[in-house]
């Protein structure tokens, strides 16, 4: 099975739920477990929230979420054209946040890393950020005969 989808929406916080639900619905065709779907929902929520809060600093901008499915392999990409990240290594450290005044926990990237199989972040200051994540479904399931 091979399939893809692409979604574009403004950087409003209401769209965080919308985006994760759409990706979860798209991924459902690969028959993931409930846990796997929750992993994907949580990771997408983190990436989209980061685009809203950090990428666009709560101002308006466009967020693009796309996904492809190849068999049991889901690849999700979240793009913003916002401020970008200066120091990626620091940004990805557990508990690091550049916005403690907004009550951020600094756990977004850590959650994405833990819940997905791969994560790749490409960012350029002043240009924006792309977060690419991969989830392979059915890794933990016992093989049925």
């Amino acid at each position, binding site marked *: 099975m091979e399939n893809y989808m692409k979604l574009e929406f403004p950087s409003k916080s209401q769209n965080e739920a919308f985006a994760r639900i759409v990706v979860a619905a798209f991924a459902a065709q690969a028959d993931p477990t409930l846990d796997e779907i929750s992993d994907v929902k949580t990771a997408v*929520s983190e990436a989209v929230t980061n685009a*809203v809060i950090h990428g666009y600093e709560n101002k308006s901008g466009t967020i693009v979420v796309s996904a492809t499915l190849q068999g049991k392999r889901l690849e999700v990409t979240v793009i913003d054209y916002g401020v970008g990240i200066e120091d990626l290594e620091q940004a990805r450290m557990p508990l690091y946040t550049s916005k403690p005044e907004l*009550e951020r*926990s600094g*756990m977004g990237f850590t959650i994405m890393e833990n819940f997905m199989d791969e994560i790749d972040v490409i960012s350029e200051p002043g240009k924006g950020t792309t977060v690419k994540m991969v989830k392979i479904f059915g890794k933990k399931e016992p093989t049925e005969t």
Partner: protein
Amino acid sequence: MDAKFVRVGTTLIVRMVGELDHHAAEKLRTKIDAKLKREGVRDLLFDFQGVQFMDSSGLGMVLGRYKLVSAKGGKVLACGLNQRIKRIFEMAGLQKRITICRSEEDALSGA
């Protein structure tokens, strides 16, 4: 996200229903902070029984309330966490600051 507030003695209980993400957390924290200012509230208990989804914005909201409440000598408790939410709490080490209980009864009786 929907939230109901109940006061038992000096504890304010927040019964949340729905998904606790950034959008919901921003709204909820304003409501909680208004209630916390009321006379006689010392401790805060988050009941997660009705929460199916939480991401790191939920952690930030809980930690923010912990700062307010602990600064005034109160404590923050959480109950009804599903496995996933518990795992997210533990990833951030929240269990060191927040008392995690099974149910509201356990939390209120100090079990």
